[in-house]
């Protein structure tokens, strides 16, 4: 189910030169992605929905709120905001909540629908597919959970379960594979382990983060 929500923002896909990697690719965790992967994969739609949970906003407000919290490096493009909002509108996740005087899309106020709330909830409860540079998506999820008064540690725990499941898979494969398999799996395992450690560290610092984002 969560695969459908996934947005891959990967730029540059280097072909995997080594044979056994093909085996791994099927798992969705291609080790050869790492060297060139730059842009974080994350869902702008769900983020905007999450921000709307606090109350109806203009598109411009939404962009500002987004940039403040998540867009330090890459502020959102206006166009991106409006295409996303119109997609959400089409899917019935947001609705227009009145238009102020004057024309133009920036005058429209959007509100989240019940379907939208359910969608956010579902998104938060669904772990991301373990892959590199997930932390921005996870960070967004955690912050949105904290902002909306949901349990942020649930988000992290669900994610760690997903990571560990992946690691179990790799561990099992490693046991059956030859040395090359083992080396490649270990590479992936060590990176997943790093992610997991980050998850644990974040979990330990949730209290601090909450005071920081809700102040």
């Amino acid at each position, binding site marked *: 189910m969560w695969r459908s929500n996934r947005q891959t923002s990967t730029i540059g896909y280097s072909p995997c030169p080594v044979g056994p990697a093909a085996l791994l690719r099927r798992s969705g965790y291609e080790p050869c992605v790492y060297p060139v992967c730059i842009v974080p994969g994350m869902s702008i739609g769900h983020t905007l929905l999450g921000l709307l949970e606090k109350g109806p906003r203009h598109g411009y407000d939404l962009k500002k709120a987004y940039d403040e919290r998540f867009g330090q490096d890459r502020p959102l493009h206006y166009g991106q905001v409006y295409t996303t909002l119109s997609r959400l509108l089409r899917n019935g996740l947001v609705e227009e909540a009145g238009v102020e005087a004057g024309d133009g899309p920036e005058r429209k106020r959007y509100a989240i629908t019940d379907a939208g709330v359910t969608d956010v909830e579902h998104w938060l409860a669904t772990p991301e597919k373990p892959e590199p540079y997930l932390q921005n998506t996870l960070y967004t999820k955690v912050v949105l959970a904290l902002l909306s008064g949901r349990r942020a540690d649930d988000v992290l*725990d669900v994610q760690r379960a997903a990571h560990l499941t992946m*690691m179990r898979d790799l*561990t099992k494969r490693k046991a059956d594979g030859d040395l090359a398999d083992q080396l490649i799996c270990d590479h992936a395992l060590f990176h997943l382990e790093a992610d997991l450690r980050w998850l644990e560290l974040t979990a*330990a610092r949730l209290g601090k983060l909450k005071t920081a984002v809700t102040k």
Partner: protein
Amino acid sequence: MTSGPMSGPDQTRVLLEAVDLHKSFGPTPALDGAGLGVRAGEVVAVMGPSGSGKSTLLHCLAGILTPDKGTVRYRDVELSAMGDGARSELRRTDFGFVFQFGQLVPELSCLENVALPLRLGSVKRKEAESRAREWLERLEVADVADKRPGETSGGQGQRVAVARALVTGPRVVFADEPTGALDSLNGERVMQLLVTAAKETNAAVVLVTHEPRVAAYSDREVVVRDGKSREMEPVT
């Protein structure tokens, strides 16, 4: 979060179960409502930050500590209802232990160390030592049989410890940071041997660790934070 479907081999029967455990050392609570169920033959990782109560939970499960509140049931018998002697015997016959370090009796040879639990169960010395030797071979450390633990490397010592934990054919093996003192390669090897041997004998393993790569050898995990436990749903 309630436990979802189990991926362990035996899905029907909870072998060892702790419910709502509370335990304090002085004023600080080490366990504050933790619980855990272990099914036969499954490997459960207990993870969590240092000082979260992982080890205390393991000690309570194994009947080494008696919780202040809550119950620990093994095969439907409550451990706190058993006497100290009966619990000792249970630990000797049905449980096995692997710790981070310092678990082998430094005076005994590795072979004698592995044979010790059998001999305490009044198996004849010859028989005990031949079974111990088999286990040492299985864990690929037969060459250190006659050395004392102080003369072996860390990895060898841990494998001897695993052999000692498994030699009695326990139903549950408790492993508290079994690879904590080892490098990755040795640690992985020890884990592989431990899990393989446990699966072969259908022994459950309760694995306390803070290393995700070690936890990856488990079937599922329980996270302990601030004395509370959370059984994680494996993602399918």
